[in-house]
């Protein structure tokens, strides 16, 4: 079997397990019937309630075993049917909610990552080209500080300075206009703070990785070789050293993007951006299982897909990966949520 | 050169301590392919003898060494130690045999646990095998550390990284010797050391061998080193032995084309083969898909169709301890070797019988 296909199958397998675990955990920890019927669900002595319970059970296949229910869900899911929401008014399809929320998160993520990468690369190159000199030391400390500021704290700090103290940016973040709404400028302004909140932390993390890797690369003989060939310093940095140093950063970028679909949720909460992150918090709290499940699947799939993309990027960057059968080592151990 | 056949095995001697027959080691590579790391290699070592295995990178010499200690078990073949076939032993059986066959490794850093004190490292063998902690064992360990030229008291508090590469190799030797082994397998023990240190380690190995009556299997890519320490030398190429026999004999009259080219390439100031202008052409074939017949034929100046079709077996060269696996060996070639006397002249400087004792 060709490798991409094997990988795809592995990926699907992983998704399947993730969905099973989520499905199982939710049904184990919460009672779907209770969420559907309310207290009636507990009123088993009353024949009338009992009838209602039986009806609901039949309707939601709750009389079936857990595996069978999962199978039904999975079958619907692969056909693109995410089910209906549990506890909003009526039974709007989960997909409506996703369609409404996902673009907002993606938009935020894109802004944040563009900010992060466009800060991180020049920053790293600057630091690495002056390794261990004052510029580098200061930038290392800065990066370290930024990495150690949790995103919720970063949100508060940025908000405090830019909106409250200096009044440069709006302090209201209703940010609830439709995706391609009318006032685009306004929206962009509203994305600045959330974008930087997520972007600065990422930028610092990328800088730390890229700087280290660049310094390692810059110590390699082939850099000396390039220098001794008379290649200009700038060209050495950007065209010889940068590319082979990008692996760790790309890995992290993939992890970040993959996870940020779910991971931006605090920022979404703070800045009141109705994205998928805030949706999952609400859904979890109200035990709206179909929504949680759908979002978990999207986030997991996103994570895996971006990893897949990262691997593909490796092959673009490093011909060794392309020609050999193995991928570049992941020396990154990522910790977080 | 692919040397098949077991003609060169010295079945007649009853002091053969270790006998390897038809050893094959293969690793899976990818889904279907196999790396033929070692293919049908046979040799034997008599008690007290030193066998050197020499070959360039990728020839399978280290793999052979590891296969002997069953790490990992070879794909097929026999590894007979004192008449017991190690490949047939179960885990515990093998474990019982382990103290008798010890190894010394190439990388002095990687082969010592960085988190343990040197004393602990040397002591590990006794700790594994003794049921109780005895004063006597500690004394023995101390003696051994002293024997390799290190300070046992320092060893109690220091860790490997506080020692130099040469000293680390000494620690490795001490660790190997503490269990009173019969056989020591040295896998490139000096190749990462500076030449001056290398000489000290080689001397020490020789001394230890004499003192403890060891049998050595010495593996190196450096023919000069191998020749110096070994009684017998085996030359490997691409998973096979191509020539085996007395080191001096092989050096004087290399019969295999590969051995000859190898010797010619050695940048020794006194290399009498240096004039041979043949070069080893082409690339080393992939061990995934080695050539048929003689494995050296793709690069051999003498290769014919026969070499492609038929794998040569070991034949004795003359009456000496010299075996070669080649259809067209350089048996008749007369080399204008310098006489021993000539080389002695150069050697003259050291004739003062002076030697620097291993003092560090």
């Amino acid at each position, binding site marked *: 079997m060709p490798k991409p296909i094997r990988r795809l199958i592995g990926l699907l397998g992983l998704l399947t397990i993730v969905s099973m675990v989520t499905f199982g955990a939710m049904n184990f920890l919460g009672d779907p019937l209770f969420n559907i019927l309310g207290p009636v669900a507990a009123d088993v002595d009353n024949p009338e309630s009992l009838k209602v319970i039986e009806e609901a059970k039949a309707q939601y296949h709750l009389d079936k075993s857990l595996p069978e229910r999962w199978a039904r869900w999975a079958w619907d899911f692969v056909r693109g049917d995410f089910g209906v929401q549990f506890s909003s008014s009526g039974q709007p399809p989960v997909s409506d909610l996703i369609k409404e929320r996902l673009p907002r998160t993606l938009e935020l993520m894109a802004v944040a990552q563009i900010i992060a990468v466009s800060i991180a690369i020049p920053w790293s190159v600057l630091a690495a080209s002056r390794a261990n000199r004052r510029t580098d030391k200061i930038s290392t400390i800065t990066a370290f500080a930024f990495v150690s500021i949790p995103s919720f*704290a970063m949100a508060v700090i940025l908000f405090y300075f830019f909106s409250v103290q200096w009044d440069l940016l709006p302090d209201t973040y209703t940010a609830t206009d439709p995706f391609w709404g009318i006032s685009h400028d306004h929206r962009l302004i509203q994305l600045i703070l959330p974008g930087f909140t997520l972007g600065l932390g990422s930028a610092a993390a990328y800088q730390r990785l890229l700087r280290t890797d660049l310094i390692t690369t810059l110590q390699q003989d082939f850099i000396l070789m390039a220098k001794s060939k008379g290649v200009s310093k700038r060209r050495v940095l950007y065209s010889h050293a940068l590319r082979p140093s990008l692996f760790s950063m790309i890995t992290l970028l993939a992890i970040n993007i993959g996870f940020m679909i779910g991971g931006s949720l605090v920022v979404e909460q703070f800045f009141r951006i109705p994205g998928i992150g805030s949706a999952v918090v609400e859904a979890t709290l109200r035990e709206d299982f179909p929504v949680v499940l759908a979002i978990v699947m999207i986030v997991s799939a996103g994570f895996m897909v971006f990893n897949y993309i990262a691997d593909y990027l490796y092959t673009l960057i490093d011909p060794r990966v392309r020609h050999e059968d193995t991928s570049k080592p992941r*020396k990154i151990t990522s910790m977080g949520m | 050169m692919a040397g098949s056949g077991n003609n060169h095995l010295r079945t007649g001697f009853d002091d053969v301590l270790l006998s390897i027959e038809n050893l094959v080691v293969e690793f899976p590579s990818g889904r279907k392919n196999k790396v033929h790391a070692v293919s049908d290699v046979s040799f034997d070592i008599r008690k007290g003898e030193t066998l050197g295995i020499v070959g360039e990178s990728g020839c399978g010499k280290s793999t052979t060494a590891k296969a002997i200690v069953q790490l990992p078990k070879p794909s097929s073949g026999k590894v007979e130690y004192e008449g017991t076939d190690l490949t047939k032993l179960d885990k515990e059986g093998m474990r019982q045999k382990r103290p008798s066959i010890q190894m010394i490794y190439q*990388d002095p850093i990687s082969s010592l646990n960085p988190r343990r004190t040197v004393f602990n490292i040397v002591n590990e063998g006794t700790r594994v095998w003794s049921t109780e902690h005895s004063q006597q064992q500690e004394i023995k360990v101390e003696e051994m550390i002293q024997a390799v030229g290190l300070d046992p008291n320092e060893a109690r508090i220091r860790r490997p990284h506080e020692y130099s590469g040469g000293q680390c190799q000494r620690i490795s030797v001490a660790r190997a010797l503490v269990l009173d082994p019969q056989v020591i397998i040295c896998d490139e023990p000096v190749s990462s050391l500076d030449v001056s240190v290398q000489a000290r380690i080689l001397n020490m190995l020789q001394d230890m061998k004499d003192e403890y009556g060891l049998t050595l299997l010495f593996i190196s890519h450096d023919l000069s080193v191998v020749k110096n320490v070994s009684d017998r030398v085996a030359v490997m190429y691409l998973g096979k032995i191509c020539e085996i026999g007395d080191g001096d004999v092989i050096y004087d009259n290399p019969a295999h084309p590969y051995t000859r080219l190898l010797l010619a390439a050695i940048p020794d100031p006194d290399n009498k083969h240096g004039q041979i202008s043949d070069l080893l052409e082409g690339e080393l074939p992939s061990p995934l898909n080695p050539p048929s017949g003689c494995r050296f034929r793709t690069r051999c100046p003498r290769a014919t169709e026969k070499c492609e079709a038929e794998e040569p077996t070991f034949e004795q060269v003359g009456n000496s301890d010299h075996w070669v696996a080649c259809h067209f060996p350089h048996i008749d070639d007369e080399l204008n070797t310098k006489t021993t006397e000539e080389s002695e002249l150069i050697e003259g400087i050291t004739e003062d019988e002076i030697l620097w004792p291993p003092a560090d």
Partner: protein
Amino acid sequence: MNEEQEINADEVKNDSQASEEETSISDSTQLEVSEFADKKTLGFGFWLATFWLVLISFLAVFSPILPFKDADKNYIAYEQKENPLTGKVQERPVQPPYAPSGEHWLGTDQDARDILSRTIEGARISLAVGALTALFGMVVGGTLGMIAGYFKGTLDKIIGAIFLVVLSFPGLILAILIVALLDRSLLTISVTLGILGVSPIGRLARAQTLSFSEREFVMAAETLGAKKSRILIKELLPNVLIPMSTLAMLVIAVAIVSEGTLAFLGLSVQNSATWGKLILTGSGLSTLESSPWVAFVPMGFLFLTVASFNYLSDRIRDYFDVRDIFVTRD
């Protein structure tokens, strides 16, 4: 397949590590600089970070017997003031939060409670969450990872798959799910975060075990006849422990941050002050505007602590030359 992919990746990594070491030896001939390059020291920052962590831990542990203000008491000040409802001047509480003063060194919160005391109180929970999380991750992840890395084969594949599943599960969502559906106790939160720590720690332990188990000293121990269990404990554990504990420090940092994140979602340990909750309390627009210290004091403590753990982890990794790179996200 995916796991295989991972395994391959690790193997490559080992190779690269091994070869790095090989070259580092021959490097010495190449560039002598390395020999006399700066000797590794932990540095001033390390001791500063350690000092901070010792201090904050000390304060946290002994806060009940230290002469701080009561963290739960409302130190309300009163004044004569007009009631907007009645228009009458009466004795009314001065609207907290109160700014830092001699009485309250770091000010008070909206309920007129002393922020310094509350922040130290919060350290108890936050540090406990961090420590429990790391402990759980180390014990469970470390054990699984080492077993997987050393015994390889099927066991490795199964454990690797488990790690992968947990890893590809959106962690924070898992945390919210468990915390929302179960309860908001210290133990639940710690164990939940601990589960999330299992995968990174486990994968690190596995990779390190795998790489060390291919080092020759392990083979040497094997040729000495040491049993697998002995090798695992005597040879591998001490080596794996250092990278693992540096990661564990990050796990502590991440756990503290995650607790804050949960607090921001209203899901932190209930009935206790935690740093996250304290920051949340002060991060409303009007509070930020009028009394930024409410948010920034606990944020400062949080930052110093998280940065200290990060820094220690970094330094120790550097000092022991652990080659893996850890990355925190939140």
